[in-house]
């Protein structure tokens, strides 16, 4: 277990380095930078910047150096001073802008992950044990719909329904009076009362997928001889179910790539834009449209990091739950 953890941590460190490279070059390599945007804007107001003025601007923003040089300056500042750079568009340090939003994104993603597991596991077990019952068909149908509706569309439909039939807007993560308030218990309660809609929107597709997988896996297990043996020995049905076949059916989630959390973090970007959440999504979209180099790179880096970290943590939790997964992880390590 310790060796597995150490190996995963080293792997994660390498991944983070690779992530930082990708996050930076994805923004800086395509033609056009923030100064080009400024020049364009100035042109729209009928102002023409002299070539030397443009050069000055570029030097001020540090955009005159080569991409590789800029990358190393960025990384050096992060490592030495925890400085993620400066947002050109907001005129603020990136760390000030993203701190709280990143926290909310992480919270939303983790709550969604828990929601998916809490809903999907019991429903998947139910659908397998009561195969072809009315409940099974209902969940299968809902599952297909969940898979087929793009997140943002589901968000729009929920917005529409709540506006049309309940006469209220459900966007955002806070009521207006709490948006800029300091953290108090009341604010936290307010957050929780708003959180469920994005959680449902983000979690539906994942829930549908996991229910389908658990149902299929469990159906394979239910007629194995070891189940029959346990039943013959007089083990209670519920106890039997939870102790053996269900654990087996959770197995493939670790041996296959566990990309549920990655998908949640990924989908959050769009859902946040539609629902107007105070998370990283809208900020990232804005930063990308404005060529706000450091802000966009830092956000993409942290989102990727969050996805990788979350996957590691959920793998570890599953390992704690099931000794068989521990063994499997250990044998993978041998390879």
């Amino acid at each position, binding site marked *: 277990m310790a060796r597995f953890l150490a190996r995963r941590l080293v792997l994660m460190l390498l991944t983070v380095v690779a992530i930082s490279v990708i996050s930076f070059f*994805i923004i800086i390599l*395509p033609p056009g930078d923030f100064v080009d945007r400024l020049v364009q804007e100035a042109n729209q107001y009928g102002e023409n910047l002299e070539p030397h003025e443009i050069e000055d601007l570029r030097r001020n923003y540090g955009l005159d150096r080569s991409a590789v040089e800029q990358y190393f300056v960025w990384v050096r500042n992060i490592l030495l001073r925890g400085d993620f750079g400066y947002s050109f568009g907001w005129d603020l340090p990136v760390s000030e802008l993203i701190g709280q939003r990143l926290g909310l994104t992480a919270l939303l993603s983790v709550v969604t992950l828990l929601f998916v597991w809490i809903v999907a596991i019991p429903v998947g077990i139910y659908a397998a044990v009561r195969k072809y019952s009315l409940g099974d068909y209902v969940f299968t149908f809902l599952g297909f719909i969940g898979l*087929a509706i793009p*997140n943002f*569309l589901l968000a729009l439909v929920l917005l529409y329904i709540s506006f049309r039939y309940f006469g209220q807007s459900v966007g955002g993560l806070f009521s207006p009076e709490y948006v800029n308030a300091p953290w108090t218990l009341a604010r936290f309660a307010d957050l929780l009362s708003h959180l469920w809609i994005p959680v449902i929107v983000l979690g539906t597709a994942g829930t549908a997928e996991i229910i389908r997988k658990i149902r299929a896996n469990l159906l394979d297990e239910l007629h194995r001889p070891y189940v029959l043996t346990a039943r013959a020995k007089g083990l209670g049905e519920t106890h039997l179910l939870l102790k053996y076949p269900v654990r087996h059916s959770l197995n493939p989630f670790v041996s296959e790539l566990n990309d549920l959390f*990655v998908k949640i973090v*990924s989908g959050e*970007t769009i859902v946040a834009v539609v629902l107007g959440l105070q998370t990283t999504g809208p900020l990232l979209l804005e930063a990308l449209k404005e060529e706000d180099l450091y802000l966009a790179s830092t956000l993409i880096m942290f989102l990727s990091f969050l996805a990788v970290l979350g996957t590691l943590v959920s793998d570890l939790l599953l390992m704690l739950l099931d000794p068989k997964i521990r063994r499997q992880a250990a044998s993978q390590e041998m390879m």
Partner: protein
Amino acid sequence: MTYAAHLSHSQLVIRRFLRHRLGIFGGVMTLLIYLVAAFVEFLAPHAPNTYQARDVYAPPQNVRWILDGPDGRRIQPHVFGLRSTTDYNTGQRVFEEDPERVIELGFLVRGDSYRFWGLVPANLHFVGPKDPGERVYFLGADRLGRDVLSRTIHATRVSMTIGLVGVGISLVLGIAIGGVSGYFGGIVDLAIQRLIEFLQSLPSIPLWIGLAAAIPPTTPPIRTYFFITAILSIIGWTGLARVVRGRFMALKDENFVKAALLDGNRPVRIIRRHMVPNFLSHIIAVVTLAIPGMIIAETSLSFLGIGLRPPVVSWGVLLQEAQNLRSIATAPWLFLPGAAVVVAVLSLNFLGDGLRDAADPYAN
């Protein structure tokens, strides 16, 4: 099932698929949707970008069948024209039907002219108003008074093909890289597998929007279309490469492959005659299941305003119209392109599930 032994592998696969009812349903729907995509200009009552300012947010019109004319009753599909007044309390325009103004509908009518497949000039439409000067809104009109149904039908072509092209590019990359990985094995295989795992551990949407935002807004539509498919394929190939490599590795050690080798078959013949038929059905299934993801991704990017842009019509571009609560509250029919996305994605998923089950005809 004794005579099953006499059937070839592909016959077994087809038999197995035909037993999967949901799969067949999905297949028929998919075929229909691609047929729609092929004949959008003919099927849509109007051209996608023609508009009528007085019909802004016009609601769907009821089709009536019996017409009381001066020369008696007859069966004649028609709609009533719309009359709008402004409600001064709410400031909203209210539409009502004007029974005086009958718009007769017909099949195979002359209407907006178009170039079929960009080549043949034509103006024939499957259904529409008999008078080419009139307009009909079976499913309402949008912010500019354009026909939502016609636009949704026209968008089918772009949205459905972007999935195909994207998966095509992914497949070429996947087969090439997955094949290299499986063929060389060892350190190359290890490196490629780690690369795939790395790419799959990243959240795709932030990466996609990062790349898509770099496409200048002035790029011509066709180039944007190919940029978007290329961007979607950057991550899309990883899943396919894994499948290709996995199947290749698994089959390499199968007894029938070894037997064929011992019988003195050349490698090319073994691959073509024995291996490809065995994993072709798997590849087809995986490809089918990859298309819906591409469609959803394109729709999402375009919806955010960084994918395809007007005047191109795709389902995502159309859903941009539904972006704010005010417009969907006034005109819920703007969700129609969303319904089209759901139907297309469901059909492809059903078809893919059926194909996947059929791909392994010996399993139970």
